[in-house]
């Protein structure tokens, strides 16, 4: 059993939660401009590391809110929990974010193009 610290409800049994896959996958803004291969990076490819992994969880038997989590997939240690729409704040979280091959994909560059304008 994992004890997961919901940002709203506090520590709860993992059976109350729903796993939502890898976090920080951005939908391309102009998908038509991407090759099928580049679009597949967004749609199908997951990182699946052994070690720290940034992922999304939902407290679906409680407050039904989504949040992000940094979890070591080898030890199940939960290293950080942070809100949706934000980036990790811990050193380990920032390292995991930067090390993801997705950062270099055309799909993510497409998704970020024009951001802030």
């Amino acid at each position, binding site marked *: 059993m994992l004890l997961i610290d919901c940002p*709203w*409800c506090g520590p*709860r*049994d993992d059976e109350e939660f729903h796993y939502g896959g890898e976090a920080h996958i951005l939908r391309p803004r102009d998908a038509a401009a991407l090759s099928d291969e580049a679009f597949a990076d967004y749609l199908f490819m997951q990182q699946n590391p052994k070690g720290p992994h940034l992922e999304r969880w939902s407290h679906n038997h*409680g407050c039904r809110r989504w949040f992000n989590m940094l979890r070591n997939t080898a030890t199940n240690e939960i290293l950080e929990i942070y809100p949706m729409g934000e980036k990790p704040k811990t050193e380990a979280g920032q390292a995991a974010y930067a090390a993801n091959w997705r950062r270099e994909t055309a799909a993510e560059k497409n998704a970020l193009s024009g951001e802030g304008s």
Partner: protein
Amino acid sequence: MVEKVGPTPPGLDPTPLDRVIGPIGGPAEAGVVLSERRHWGKLVLRGEPDDKKFITGATKALGVAPPSKPNTAATIQSTAIIWTAPNEWLVVSEPGTEAALESALESALAGTHHAITNVSDHSTIIRLSGTAARAVLAKGCAIDLHPRVFGVGQSAQTNLAKAQVIFRQFDEMPSYDILVRASFAPYLWAWLTDAGLEFGVRVEG
């Protein structure tokens, strides 16, 4: 075809538990006392807690502010306003009062971003009380129920013996009102009577 198994007490509308509750009564010294709160009103209230107009309007209609603290319930007379999410509350009120409360909320919240949904028949309430009530509840959920953590005014939306529930503690006995989906209520009632067996169970009408 749905067959009605047990009797509904005369003059009352049926509830999901009528066919499972069985005879009323039991030992006076029972550690666990169970009853059903029949047909209490239940309204889902949604709105932004940072919206002053919303909070003021809701407070005016309810008589008490919707709690902003997670896992708590505010009460006024027999009405409870239970925190269920950062922008959502469940308002539980005496049977038959929900329609008037709904219109009072609608008029007090006019012009604000909000939603009110009457979900009275979605669930029923099992009242679990007695000196062993905490021990029984602890058998089926992973919430820390120790009085220093979970006391009067606390609530939780969680799983109890795998059934999704919302419960709150309302006195020091301790006593809990457990909201459970209508279709899960007979199962949860059976589970509670079984879990309470070692302490003695009395059923009240």
